[in-house]
């Protein structure tokens, strides 16, 4: 809803609970990073109040989160499509990483 110029310097955030039965494992991590890479925004995530934010486009980093089931995933993004990116990633996690339906 915001103009590109406004959104540019702005950080969009979102939070979502990880309901995946075995936590952030290989397949969820691959899906999350694949989706993140579709956006130009810089996207970072962290799990359950960890100190560090990590790059949501790095599968190695996302796996290293070791996020367990029921952890709260925070997502923040900045850049032109940040808002759409956060919305899409929140949806993906909330819907428990559905098989791509394209």
């Amino acid at each position: 809803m915001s103009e590109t110029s406004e959104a540019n310097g702005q950080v969009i955030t979102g939070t979502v609970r990880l309901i995946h039965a075995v936590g952030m494992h290989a397949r969820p991590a691959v899906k999350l990073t694949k989706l993140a890479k579709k956006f130009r925004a810089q996207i970072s995530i962290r799990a359950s109040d960890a100190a560090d934010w990590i790059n949501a486009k790095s599968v190695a980093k996302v796996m290293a989160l070791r996020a367990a089931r029921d952890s709260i995933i925070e997502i923040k993004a900045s850049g032109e499509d940040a808002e759409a990116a956060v919305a899409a990633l929140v949806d993906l996690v909330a819907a428990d990483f559905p098989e791509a339906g394209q």
Partner: protein
Amino acid sequence: MNLHADIAGSAYRGKTASIGFAHGPFVRVDAAVDCGRTVGAPNDEETALRAALVSAGRQIAALASAAGGEAALILEFQVALLDDEDFLAPIFAKIRAGTPADAAWTSALDEQIADYNSAPDEYLRARSSDLTDLRGRVMRTLHGGRSQAVEIPRGAVVCADDLPPSQFLEIDWSRGGGLALVRGSPTSHVAMLARARGIAMVVQLGAVSDSAKTALLDGEAATLELDPTAEQVGNFERRHEIHRKSRAAARAILRRPAASWDGEKIRLLVNIQRVEDLNHSDAQYADGIGLMRTEFLLTEQAGLADEETQRLAYDTVLIWARGRPVTIRTFDAGGDKPVPGFTCDNEANPFLGVRGLRLCLARPDIFTVQLRALARAATRGNLKVMFPMVTTPEELEAGRELFADVVGRLRAEGIPAALPELGIMVEVPAAALTIEQFAASFFSIGSNDLAQYVTACDRSNGALAKLLDPLHPAVLELIGRTAQFGKRAGVNVSLCGDMAGDPRCIPALLSCGVRELSVNPSALAQVKQTIDGLSRGGGRD
């Protein structure tokens, strides 16, 4: 473990990863010996690694597209890593600082592998073999070698320390064969691939001899026999034949997608008495575990199993289920299941006595140990917990309070714990008649006890067998009420008594609105077949 070294052929026992039988040439596959390569200038090294990564990516993509399905999904993780700049950047930085490409690559991967290997979670540990796989493939490419030189004949029993998924996919399994791993894990990606292909696979065999001509691999008994005697072969063939016969009918049915009736999916789960019941070859086809009994933990040789033993049992089942729901019932002692030191002696009528949740609430010393183990296991999979023999909502709430308290205390101790979904067994008529008053996440109808209480017939008294009819309209009425309430309120209802596995009862249960049945693994095929027949034959009007 060496079973009997005294006979001619040596035999080993491991853990089942995939059920199947293989009799064929024994082939030992081990990591290729490092053949040196000439190290170039940093620039050339960087180019060499880039090229190797691209080439490895292509090889993996080709394997994935040839194999499809599950295999493709498994290999996606490796493809994603090859495309992860955050992961690769430090490797290239090292190369630019003068480290040879192969050393920079291996040390980065070794670090990751060690990290995964030290994870407390078996799933994560199993991922280390995907990384070993990737490490090896890129190294082989970097060294200019094509993959694996070892020729593997079809139908071979392949033995390795561990085998990565992509190497598994390069082997021709079209004539069967088997995989015997010295280490390995039943939750690894390779195990999933082997199960999907019906390839026998046994893991954690321990030290296995390097030299043998032929081998027998029995995925069911988890045994590997090398250079077997005629007698060993004969026994193996007999076991195989028994397995084949019992599976022949069931397999066709079980492999079909979930049963459905009236356009609705019928979920079929299994009941288990102990962890080993999961070794039944049909259990893998279930949609989950509808009832895991825990009384076996009360009667260990040393008495009540401690928290760690219990947690391990729950954990093993959750890992086996791979995300499918697992419903564990808290101790259901008393009634016809007396436990010395736990249940009350001298009850005039134990079936109407202090049993199930009643007993657990009366003995928090024993109950708390179980709740602690369950709360810890709950962080590891799709766990649901149900209380047996519940009469009033207050009992459920008392159990919940105790459970929440246990979770709070564990967390205060710094131990990861979660409160799982809580449900109740519906077996006391009073509960079935006031079902809407229970704030349960799910209901599981225990039709054996429900029928005995509704018909006032002791189910251990043979003289009443005829009168104790689970199809009595009063029993069906209570089952129907529960199912209908569940449907209205959006609360899952399943049925885990003997009725669920009885083809005579299934039409009535489906008509009552029950859409989830939990049966013994050995009944799974028959139940699926029955439902299939009903849906095709128009079992409803």
